[in-house]
C-alpha cells in the first residue's frame, strides 16, 4: 500500500463527540497529524482505548481498534505488542485509566514494553460527572471533593520514568508541537508515555474556574516540567526475550514413555504409604518406585502431600499399584505403611490406630515403639553397611525391601527405573544393594 494518507481519521464517523472546548479533540487531531507525518500504513497502527470519554476515540480512526475494559488497556496493548511486534500499539487512556490501572502502567514501564501510552489528563472523570482522579490538584473541587482535594496528585511521568519507561514526556493540549512529541513517542522503540494536560470544560474547568493559565500554575507549583523529560535507548521486552531464547537448544516433543519390560503377579490393588521427612527424597523415591510398577505392566497412582512451604513438607507419598486401571486414587488404609523418620511418624499418628491385623508397618528401628493392630516390622538401617547413616537413601532401601517381601513386581524393574534417572543412578543402585536384609520381622 503506497497511498499517501492525508488523514487517519475515520471521516465517515466525524464530527468528534466531545464537549465544546474539550482538550480531547485537540489531542486526537495532534495524534492524526503525528501519524500522517510518520506515513504509517493503516494496518501498522493499533489504537487501544481505555474507558471514559477517551474511550470513544478509537471509533474515529481508520486503523486497527481495540476497545476494552477500564484500566486494562495497557495489558491488552502488551499482549498485542508481544504478538505483533512490528505494529505501532498506541494506548489512549485518561487520568482515570492511569489510576485504576496504575499497576499495569508501572509493570509495562518496567518491562520496557514496546507500546506508546497517551494520557488524556484532565484531572477528573468527565464521563461519569466530574469525580476526582489520581491527578486532581490539591484543593480542587470536584463532585467527590466538595471541601477540596486533600490527596497528593500522582506524578505520572515520574512514576513511569523511575520504573524503567524509556521515553517520557509531559505536554499540554495547548502546545503547538504536541504532534511532534506524539510522533517521537510512537517512533521510539520501547515504553513511551506522553502525559498530556488538558481541560475538561464541562466539569473540572467550570467547577474550579480553571483555564489554560491554571494548568501552567499547577505545573509550576508542583515543579513539573514539560517536554521530553527522559529518553534512553534500551531493548524492549520482546527483543530481550528473543535474545535470551536464541541459541537455547530446541527440545520438547512428545513424552518418551516407558516400555513394559517386566511382569507382575499382583492380583489386586495394593496401597503403600511412605511417611518420611522433608528433604529426604521421599517423593522422588516414590515416583521411581511407581515407575518400576509401570515398567512391570501395573497401573500406578501417586498422591503426595502438598506442603505450604516446600522445605517443611513433601514428606508423604501414597501409592496404589494395581493390575487394573485405577478409577479412584483415594486410599482408606495402606496395605503397607512405611515410617522412616520422626516427622513421618507424627504425620501418620492418626492412621496407625486404624490399621488392622491384615496391614503391615515397616518402621525405622531407631524410632520408638508404635501402638497398632498391624504387623510391625523393623527397618534396621544399621545393617546397611556404608549407607547406614545415608538418610536420604532410606526411602529407596525400604521400597526395595518391600519388593523383596511382598513380590509386587520384580526388583529388576525398580532398578531399571532408578537407572533411567542418570544423575542419581549410582547412589540409588548402591542403596538397593545395601538394603538387602534391612527389613526384620
Amino acid at each position, binding site marked *: 500500500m503506497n497511498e499517501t494518507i492525508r488523514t487517519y481519521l475515520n471521516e465517515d464517523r466525524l464530527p468528534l463527540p466531545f464537549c465544546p472546548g474539550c482538550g480531547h479533540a485537540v489531542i486526537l487531531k495532534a495524534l492524526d497529524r503525528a501519524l500522517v507525518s510518520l506515513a504509517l500504513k*493503516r*494496518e501498522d497502527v*493499533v489504537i487501544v482505548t481505555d474507558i471514559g470519554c477517551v*474511550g*470513544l476515540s*478509537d*471509533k474515529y480512526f*481508520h*486503523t*486497527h*481498534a*481495540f*476497545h*476494552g*475494559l477500564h484500566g*486494562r488497556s495497557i*495489558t*491488552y*496493548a*502488551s*499482549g*498485542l505488542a*508481544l*504478538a*505483533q511486534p512490528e505494529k505501532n500499539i498506541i494506548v489512549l487512556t485518561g487520568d482515570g485509566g492511569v489510576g485504576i490501572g496504575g*499497576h*499495569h502502567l*508501572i*509493570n509495562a514501564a518496567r518491562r520496557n514494553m514496546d507500546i506508546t501510552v497517551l494520557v488524556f489528563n484532565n484531572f477528573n472523570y468527565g464521563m461519569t460527572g466530574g469525580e476526582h482522579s489520581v491527578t486532581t490538584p490539591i484543593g480542587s473541587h470536584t463532585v467527590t471533593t466538595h471541601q477540596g482535594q486533600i490527596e497528593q496528585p500522582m506524578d505520572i511521568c515520574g512514576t513511569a520514568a523511575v520504573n524503567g519507561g524509556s521515553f517520557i514526556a509531559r505536554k499540554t493540549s495547548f502546545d503547538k508541537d504536541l504532534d511532534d512529541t506524539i510522533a517521537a513517542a510512537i517512533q521510539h522503540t520501547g515504553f513511551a508515555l506522553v502525559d498530556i494536560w488538558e481541560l475538561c470544560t464541562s466539569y473540572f474547568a467550570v467547577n474550579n474556574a480553571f483555564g489554560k493559565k491554571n494548568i501552567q500554575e499547577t505545573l509550576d507549583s508542583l515543579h513539573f516540567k514539560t517536554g521530553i523529560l527522559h529518553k534512553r535507548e534500551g531493548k524492549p521486552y*520482546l527483543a530481550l526475550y528473543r535474545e*535470551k*531464547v536464541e541459541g*537455547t537448544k*530446541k*527440545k*520438547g516433543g*512428545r*513424552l*518418551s*514413555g*516407558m*516400555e*513394559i519390560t517386566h511382569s507382575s503377579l499382583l492380583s489386586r490393588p495394593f496401597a503403600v504409604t511412605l511417611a518420611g521427612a522433608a528433604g529426604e527424597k521421599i517423593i522422588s523415591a516414590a*515416583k521411581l518406585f*511407581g*515407575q518400576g510398577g*509401570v515398567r512391570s505392566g501395573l497401573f*500406578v*497412582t*501417586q*498422591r503426595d502431600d*502438598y*506442603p*505450604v512451604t516446600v522445605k517443611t513438607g513433601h514428606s508423604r507419598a501414597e501409592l496404589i499399584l494395581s493390575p487394573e*486401571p*485405577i*478409577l*479412584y*486414587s*483415594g486410599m482408606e488404609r495402606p496395605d503397607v505403611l512405611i515410617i522412616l523418620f520422626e516427622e513421618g511418624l507424627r504425620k501418620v499418628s492418626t492412621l496407625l490406630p486404624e490399621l488392622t491385623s491384615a496391614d503391615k508397618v515397616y518402621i525405622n528401628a531407631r524410632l520408638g515403639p508404635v501402638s497398632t493392630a498391624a504387623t510391625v516390622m523393623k527397618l534396621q538401617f544399621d545393617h546397611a553397611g556404608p549407607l547406614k547413616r545415608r538418610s536420604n537413601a532410606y526411602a529407596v532401601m525400604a521400597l526395595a525391601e518391600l519388593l523383596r517381601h511382598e513380590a509386587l513386581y520384580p526388583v529388576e524393574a525398580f532398578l531399571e527405573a532408578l537407572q533411567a534417572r542418570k544423575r542419581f543412578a549410582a547412589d540409588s543402585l548402591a542403596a538397593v544393594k545395601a538394603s538387602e536384609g534391612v527389613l526384620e520381622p
Partner: protein
Amino acid sequence: MRELINGAEAISRAALDAGCDFFAGYPITPATPILLHMMRELPLRDGIAIQAEDEIAAIGMCIGAVIGGKRALTATSGPGMSLYSENLGLAVMGEVPLVIVDCQRMGPATGAATTTSQGDVQFLRWGTSGGFPLIVLAPANVEACYHCTIDAFQLAERYRIPVIVATDKETVSTFATIDTDRLIPSQTIERHTLPGSDPYRLYDYARPDLVVPLASMEEHIIRFNTSSHDPAGYLTKEPDQLDVLNTHLQEKIYAHQDDIDHYDYVPVEGARTLVISYGIAAGSALKAVQKAAEKGIAVSSLILTSLWPIPERILTEALHDVDTILVVEMNNGQYAREVERLAHMKQTVRRVTSVNGVLIPPETILQSGGVQ
C-alpha cells in the same frame, strides 16, 4: 509405552499439541505447575510465555495476544478466577477464543490453597456480569485433562468463546499411569481466517448462531469492541442492534450443543439408580458403580465432561427411567440443583457431597443410594 504424569503436565502438553503459542499467568497454588511448564517449554518453540503482574494482566495480555493472532492459554485457581471475572466478560462480549484452566481449590477467598474442591462450578458459569453463556469442560482424570484441553482449544476457536477447563488440585497434582499413544490430539485445530471483502466486519454474522472467523491484522483492519457494538464493531445502544448482538451471544452456543456437549453415559439394563458425576468425583462414582455391580446391583453412570452449557439432552435421557439420582460432587451441591430442576416430582435426587477436601469414598455413594 506408558508414563506416570499428573494432570498439570497432561494439560500443558495438550496445550502445546493444540498449537498454543502464548501463555500469560500468575503463580498460584495449585495451578503453578502449568505456569512453570509453559515458561519452560514455550520459548523453545518460538512461543511467548510471560509471568504477569497479576491475574488481571495475565488474562488481559492473553486477550490482546489472541487478537494479535496468537492461540492463548492461562491457568489459575479460585482467587485468580475472581480476578479474571471482568476480562472473562470481555472475552465473551468481544468473542475471543481463549482457554482458561481453573485448578479448583477450597474457597471462599484464600481458602485452603492445597485442598481439593469443585466449589467453583456455579461461579464459572455466572462469574461475570451479563449472564451470557460460555463453555466449561471438566476432565474426569489425568488422561481426560489432555483430551479436554485439546477440545477446549477446538471449541474456543470454533465458537470464538472463552472455554474453561475446570479441574482441581487433586487431578492436577496426582500422578497416574497413562498410555502415551493415547496422548495424541484427536483433531487438528485450525484457525479459520477470513479472506473476505474489505472492509472486514468482525461481528457481521450471517445468522445468529454463526461466528465470523478472526482475521489477520496483516490483511484486514480489525475493529475489536467490547462495549455493545454493531456488526462493524462500532459502539451502539440501538435496541434492534442490541437484540441482534445479545441473541447471537446465546445462539452461537445453545444452537450447537450437539457439538459442545461432552459426556460418558453408561446405562445399565434394569438400573433404577443413576449416578451423575464430573471431574475428580467421577472416580469415586465409577468405583461405586463397579462395587454395586460386584454385588449384583445395576446402577447407571453419567459422567459429564462438559458442565456449561448444561447438557440437558443427555441429562433428560439419562433421568428418564430411574427412580433415584445421586449427584456426586466435591462442593456444597452446586450441580445437583441443575439436576433437581430436570427431575420430575416422583424422582429422588440425592446430593452426595464433600466440603472437607477428602475424596468421596465410593462406599458413601453406595450408602446414599441405599446400595449396601
